[in-house]
C-alpha cells in the first residue's frame, strides 16, 4: 500500500489529487458521480467580495484538445459562498477557497469573512485577475506587486496561503520567487493561457468577452515546463495543473516537481477523472515499486542530466 499523503502548508492531504478552481462548482455537482471524500482536497470556485454576475454569453469555445472559457468570476460573493463552503464541512476532504479580486482591498475583504469559517481550510489566491489600479494588467505579472500582495494577505491569516500563478508572463520563476518571499505556503500553477477564437461565418470573435482562458490537454506541455522551472526556483510545495486528464498526466507533473495536482477541464469530459487519477497514481507507485508518492516528486529532475545546452551552437 503506497502512501499517497502529501503536505501543502498546514494541510495533510490523503492523496495529491484535487479538482481545479472553477471546474468543480462547490462540489455538489460532482457528488452524484463519486464520494467527494476520495479527493485530496476540494477547491471551490473563485470567490469575490461582492456577488459577480460574470461575463455575458458566449462564454465557451472548443479548441483543438482544449477549450476557452470567459466565465468572468461569476460567483455569489463571499457572504453567500460562506454557506456553500460550510456545507462541505463534513464531506471528508479539506476545502481550499479560491479568492479573486481586482484590488488588494477586495482580496482582503474575502479573507476577512472566511477567517471565521472553519471549513475554509486554505486560501488559493488567484492573481490572474485584472488589477484595476494597474490599468487592468493582471496582478500576477509583476514580481513587486505579487510580493506586496502576498505580504499583505499573509499578515491577515494563519491559514495555509496558496498563490495561484498566471502563465501569461515572461518569467514565471521570478513571479514564483516573489510569492515565496511574500510568505506564501505553496504555489499553484498554471492558470489559463490567454487565448481567442474567431468564427469565420459571423466574422466575429466567438467569446462575448473577446479573449478567454485556454485550458485542457493542449496546454499541458507549457504547464509542465512551468512547474519544472518553478520547482527549481522555490522551496515551497507546488500544486501542478494544466491539461491533466489521466493518472499518467498527473504522474508527469509529480515527476516534474509538483507535490500535488489539480484537474480542471477534464472533469467536464470525464466526471470521474479525479478518483480515477487517484487510483492510477496508486497503481503506478505499486507497479514501479515506490512506497510513497513523495518518492516520485521531482524524480525527473534527479534522473535528468542535460546533455546539451539551450541550443547546440550557443557558445557562452
Amino acid at each position, binding site marked *: 500500500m503506497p502512501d499517497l499523503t502529501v503536505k501543502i502548508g498546514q494541510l495533510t492531504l490523503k492523496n495529491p489529487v484535487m479538482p481545479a478552481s*472553477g*471546474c*468543480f*462548482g462547490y462540489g455538489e*455537482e*460532482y457528488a*452524484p*458521480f463519486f464520494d467527494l471524500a476520495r479527493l485530496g482536497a476540494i477547491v471551490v*470556485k473563485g470567490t469575490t467580495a461582492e456577488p459577480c*454576475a*460574470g461575463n*455575458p*454569453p*458566449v*462564454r*465557451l*469555445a*472548443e*479548441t*483543438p*484538445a*482544449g*477549450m476557452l*472559457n470567459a*466565465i468572468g468570476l*461569476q460567483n455569489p460573493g463571499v457572504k453567500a459562498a460562506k454557506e456553500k463552503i460550510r456545507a462541505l464541512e463534513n464531506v471528508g476532504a479539506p476545502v481550499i477557497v479560491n479568492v479573486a479580486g481586482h484590488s488588494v482591498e477586495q482580496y482582503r475583504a474575502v479573507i476577512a469573512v472566511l477567517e471565521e469559517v472553519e471549513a475554509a481550510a486554505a486560501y488559493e489566491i488567484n492573481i490572474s485577475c485584472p488589477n484595476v489600479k494597474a490599468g487592468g494588467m493582471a496582478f500576477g505579472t509583476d514580481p513587486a506587486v505579487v510580493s506586496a500582495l502576498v505580504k499583505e494577505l499573509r499578515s491577515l491569516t494563519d491559514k495555509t496561503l496558496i498563490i495561484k500563478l498566471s502563465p501569461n508572463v515572461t518569467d514565471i520563476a521570478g513571479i514564483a520567487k516573489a510569492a515565496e518571499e511574500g510568505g506564501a505556503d505553496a504555489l499553484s500553477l498554471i492558470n489559463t493561457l490567454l487565448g481567442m477564437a474567431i468564427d469565420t461565418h459571423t466574422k466575429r470573435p466567438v467569446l462575448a468577452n473577446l479573449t478567454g482562458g485556454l485550458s*485542457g*490537454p*493542449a496546454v499541458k506541455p507549457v504547464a509542465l515546463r512551468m512547474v519544472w522551472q518553478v520547482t527549481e526556483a522555490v522551496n515551497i510545495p507546488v500544486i501542478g495543473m494544466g491539461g491533466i*486528464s489521466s493518472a499518467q498526466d498527473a504522474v508527469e507533473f509529480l515527476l516534474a516537481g509538483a507535490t500535488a495536482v489539480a484537474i480542471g*477541464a477534464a*472533469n*467536464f*469530459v*470525464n*466526471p*470521474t477523472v479525479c478518483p480515477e487519477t487517484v487510483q492510477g497514481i496508486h497503481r503506478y507507485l505499486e507497479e514501479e515499486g515506490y512506497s510513497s508518492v513523495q518518492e516520485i516528486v521531482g524524480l525527473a529532475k534527479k534522473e535528468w542530466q542535460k546533455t546539451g545546452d539551450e541550443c547546440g551552437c550557443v557558445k557562452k
Partner: protein
Amino acid sequence: MTKKMSLEIISHQQVGSQVRRLVLRGKTGARPGQFVQVAVGETHDPYLRRPISVHDCSEDSLTLLYRAAGRGTTLLSAKNAGDTVDIVGPLGNGFPHHKGPAVVVAGGIGAAPLYYLLRSLREAGQDVYFFYGARTKDELVMQKDYENLVSEYAEATDDGSAGYHGFVTELAQKAIAQREAHVFACGPEGMLRQVSAIAARYNRTCYVSLEARMACGVGACLGCVVPVGTSGEYKRVCVDGPVFAGREVFANA
C-alpha cells in the same frame, strides 16, 4: 440518477439528409426534455462532449436524433451498431407536467426532444396540437412518427417545399389563439422568442427548450448561461434548464 455510462449501439440510421437516429441499449430513467452529454470520439480532439436531447426513452433503450453538422457530430455518425457510446446523463430539468391540451411547436432539429414529450402527453391521454416547421422539406424528418401521436398535425416550410408556406409560428399563432392550452416549443432562438411572445399575448403558460454551448453539462463550469429576467442575472441552461418558462428568458416577450 445522473451517471457516466457506456452504452451499446442497437441501431444507428440515417433518417434525413444530415440527420441520424441513434438507439442505445441501457436504462437511463430519462424524462422528456432532458438531455445527455455524448462523447463523440476517443481522443482529445474534439475535446468536449456534445449535448443531445433525449428523443425517446424506454425501460432498456435511449434514442437520440441529431444533425451531423460539425466536426464532433460527424465523428459520432461514423459509429456502428455494436460499438459503444459513452454518455453522461440524464441531465437537465425536462418539461414540467401539466394537465390538459398542449400546443407543441418544433423548428428543425428542435423537434428531437419533442417526440418523447408527445409520446408522454399521448400516454397521459392529453390532446396535442403539433406544428412542425423547417426551412425546407429536407429538414423535416420522421414526420409520420410525430403525426401518429397527435390530435392535430401541420407542417410549415420557409420556402413552401412542404406544408404551409411560411413560418411555423404563423400556424402556431392560430392554434394558441384558439385553444386554451399549454405551449411547448423547441427550435431556433428567434422562433422560441416569437412563440413566447404569442403565448404571453394569449396568457398561456409556455415552455421553451434552449440551446447553449456547454462544457460540463452538470452546472459546475458556468459556461452555458442565459440572461434571465431583466436584472442582468444569469441561469445555467444545463441544470436550471434546458427548459425555461418563455417569460423568464425572453423578458420582453
